[in-house]
């Protein structure tokens, strides 16, 4: 799992049915001190956890599909937690 900040949203009306009703966020990966790391990516947010500006934890790879209730979705990354504070 990695830390990122939601910096925007993706609007797509035509998508595969597995992604219907799922928010798609643009996430900038960040380090623990908040500095940007690498390029932004698109992360699925099936439970609408992270609003724009929020720090979130996202999971990548095949495991990202587990964040969906069905466990099946063509996603490379999913939001799984909202970060309150990194101590």
């Amino acid at each position, binding site marked *: 799992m990695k830390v990122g*900040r939601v*910096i*925007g*949203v*993706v*609007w*797509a*009306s*035509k*998508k*595969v*049915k*597995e*992604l219907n009703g799922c928010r*798609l966020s*643009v996430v*900038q990966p960040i380090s623990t001190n908040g500095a940007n790391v690498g*390029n*932004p*990516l*698109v*992360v*699925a947010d099936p439970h609408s956890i992270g609003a*724009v*500006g929020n720090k979130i934890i996202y999971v990548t*790879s*095949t495991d*990202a*599909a587990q964040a969906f209730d069905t466990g*099946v*979705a*063509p*996603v*490379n*990354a999913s939001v799984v937690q909202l970060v309150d504070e990194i101590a």
Partner: protein
Amino acid sequence: MIFAKVIGTIVSTQKDENLKGKKLLLCKEVTHDGKPLNTYHVAVDAVQAGEGNFVLLTYGSSSRMTEVTKDAPIDAVVSAIIDDVEIEESFK
């Protein structure tokens, strides 16, 4: 998932049994604001995308997790056609 632009289609007659009936799209990776990057992907089309479309591309084993691409020998799928990307002004 990454942003991509469809720049062409690929036609092939001899293909794997599990690829039959699937449209293959040649996609060029782009940034969130549409700037082209130097990476290409051949992706299976799951949303009836066409040339010129700004699309969302899922890669790796996750790309097999749609109804269209189940059990197919692929590693990229066009999973959505993007209407708009809205980036918060302060993060631009």
